[in-house]
């Protein structure tokens, strides 16, 4: 009997231990991050090998740039530390490295929306004023690489919204110009959907699933209605008539069927598929889908029958949000002088041009957008430049993760009808006020 009891105890003990091990492997957060602060204003010193920390690049364009650098700098070799494709995981690994103050990450490839968080936490180093030709870049990209008027990163590539439209259907319905306002888009749709060949086609879609795409689409709608999510002082301004107009445009769109019901599950790829299968008249998406849409191997049913324009707004052309990436120097890196030199090389005009041969990522120098040789392969670039000219960065807040989560929660609730637009915006205002108050 005693034997039996002891076994039981072992059993229970083991179960506890197993449960503990199982639960805790997922979450062993770092301890306190200590009080040591990198000297922000110190000059960038030290030369030698560095690491370029980035998501994978299937096009091979970034690797070509690194190879070119390594050929010229035998003593300052750059090695590529490849992070997962998923942006959340990239951020998490970089944050973890910063919290242990690891020196193994020197140069970081950051999504534009992480700039504020990394800068405010002193995880990245400010760049000297004269390090980059900032006056020659697309202004919105410089803005997105700065935090409180200090440049923290070098714009690497940029991205903006485009409105894809079915030119064949529009022409058949007698619509000659792409819509500049939401009302014009609705009118164009009404005309198109009356056509017999438009059976089973819906009017408009963007990215409305609960992820970053929803934040992008909502902030674009608000900016396109003349509002903004935050004012110049960083105070949230989402309980305004402009934000309400924007949200009602989306909510009413779902209610009236202008936006198809299943668009609530659309991320970038699902929307591309729907448009590519000919189920949409208009689609808001990024430039990267242009290539799939124009494929002539039979995979795209809209090849040759679509056009791009700037996204529409309430009273005129809409305001795109800004995507893209910046290259920054980790505060805990060694050989910062090499890192700075490498960044300047990596984002130089020459290298941006070299990469255009391999990758469709939009360069940050405006002249490429109108260069005939470049636009021959990427015909959407002139439109994208217009879109970038009045583009707005997404909210530049330090707690970006919490901010985008709050936006997604409330806007998704409004789109699915769980909350009225008024209530959703009022709740969002409260949440954002809390988040930014700290």
């Amino acid at each position, binding site marked *: 009997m005693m*034997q*039996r009891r002891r*076994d*039981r105890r*072992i*059993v*229970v003990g*083991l*179960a*506890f231990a*197993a*449960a*503990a*091990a*199982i*639960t*805790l*492997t*997922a*979450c*062993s*957060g*770092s*301890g*306190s*991050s*200590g*009080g040591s*602060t990198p000297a922000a204003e110190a000059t960038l010193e030290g030369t030698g090998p560095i690491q370029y920390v980035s998501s994978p690049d299937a096009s091979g364009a970034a690797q070509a740039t690194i190879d070119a650098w390594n050929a010229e700098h035998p003593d300052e070799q750059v090695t590529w530390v490849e992070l997962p494709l998923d942006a*959340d995981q990239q951020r*998490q690994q970089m*944050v973890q490295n910063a919290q242990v103050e690891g020196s193994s990450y020197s140069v970081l490839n950051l999504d534009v929306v992480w700039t504020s968080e990394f*800068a*405010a*936490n*002193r995880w990245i180093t400010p760049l000297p004023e004269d390090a980059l030709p900032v006056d020659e870049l697309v202004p919105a990209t410089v803005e997105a690489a700065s*935090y*409180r008027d200090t440049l923290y990163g070098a714009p690497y590539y940029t991205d903006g919204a485009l409105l894809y439209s079915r030119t064949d259907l529009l022409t058949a319905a007698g619509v000659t110009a792409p819509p500049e306002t939401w009302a014009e888009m609705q009118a164009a749709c009404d005309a198109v959907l009356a056509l017999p060949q438009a059976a089973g086609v819906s009017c408009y879609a963007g990215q409305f*699933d*609960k*992820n970053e795409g929803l934040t992008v689409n909502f902030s674009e709608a608000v900016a396109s209605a003349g509002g903004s999510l935050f004012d110049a002082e960083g105070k949230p301004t989402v309980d305004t008539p402009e934000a309400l107009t924007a949200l009602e445009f989306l909510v009413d769109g779902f209610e009236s069927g202008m936006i198809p*019901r*299943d668009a*609530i*599950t659309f991320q970038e790829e*699902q929307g591309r*598929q*729907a448009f590519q*299968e000919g189920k949409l008249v208009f689609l808001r998406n990024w430039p990267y889908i242009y290539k799939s849409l124009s494929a002539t191997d039979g995979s795209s049913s809209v090849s040759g029958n679509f056009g791009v324009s700037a996204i529409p707004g309430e009273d005129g052309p809409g305001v795109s949000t800004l995507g893209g990436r910046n290259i920054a120097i980790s505060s805990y890196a060694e050989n910062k002088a090499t890192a700075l030199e490498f960044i300047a090389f990596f984002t130089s005009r020459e290298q941006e041009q070299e990469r255009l041969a391999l990758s469709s990522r939009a360069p940050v120098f405006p002249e490429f957008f109108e260069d005939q040789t470049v636009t021959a392969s990427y015909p959407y670039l002139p439109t994208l430049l217009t879109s970038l000219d009045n583009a707005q960065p997404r909210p530049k807040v*330090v*707690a970006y*993760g*919490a901010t985008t*989560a709050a936006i*997604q*929660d409330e806007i*998704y609730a409004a789109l*699915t009808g769980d909350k009225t637009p008024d209530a959703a915006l009022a709740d969002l205002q409260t949440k954002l006020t809390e988040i930014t*108050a*700290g």
Partner: protein
Amino acid sequence: MATLLLSPTFIVLVLVIVYPLLSAVYQSLFSAESGLDADGFVVEGESFVGLGNYADIFAGAESGRFYNALWNTTFFTFVTVALETVIGVAFAVAMNRAFKGRAFLRAAILIPWAIPTAVSGLLWRWIFQSNGIANDLLNTQVLWTAEGFAAQVAVIIAEVWKTAPFIGLLVLAGMQLIPEEVYEAAKLDGANAWKQFVSITLPLVRPALLVAVLFRLLDALRMFDLPFVLIGPRKSSVETLSILAWDESNQLQYGTASAFAIILLVYVALIAFVFIRVLGADVVGDADKQAEKAARKQAARAAKEAGR
């Protein structure tokens, strides 16, 4: 001497289990400073908040999210494990028969278990997307990957598909230990197939089955990747405790994240404890002969009963 010989094991256990556990408990008592200084830099450091993180979780403004996640976790666990057990046992019975192509079936049945969860999450996401094959086959327009009950059903289907083979395999291993004579005796006594299953197979396979179910319970309680990949983060209808912990740590709230992990740990341990107490699962295989003797006795009794 025994202590000396066992010490490497204990050292490893302390390093990989005790230390992270204590560290997480300690971490859960702190809260990160928030706020910016005049130059826009984050105020660094953490402050000791005692049990404040736990109080916030259970009764704070966001506690609804926690109770929702707790309910989802429990709901998913019990529904999926129940379905998996039934289907897994059926698999095992099928695989235990001698028939042509048995080796192939056994290998085939293991494929779902062998596919990484995140990958099968993606596969099911394609199946369940609005123009996916699920809607095509059912001739419906259900938005599986949006919020709601359909999303929960999607997660349950994918989870059961993935893990029923696990139970099937463990049960099959248990079944193959049942001596053939017992069945022969039952047959002689005129017991039909159902009677044999209920009176011989089930009781004799019980120890293996209970261990399999216990493992699945522990596993399902920390479900994370399937709802995360298949439906997406922050969807309240499929948010589990693990996803909550991830979400907090993703936003650098390591204190709250640790508190969630500790709560999940206690919850998992509680369920494991109750399960072991109530059903007497024999997790470590009770090396003593008593159990074996009891099993043999039980087998004899079962055979007799089956014959009746």
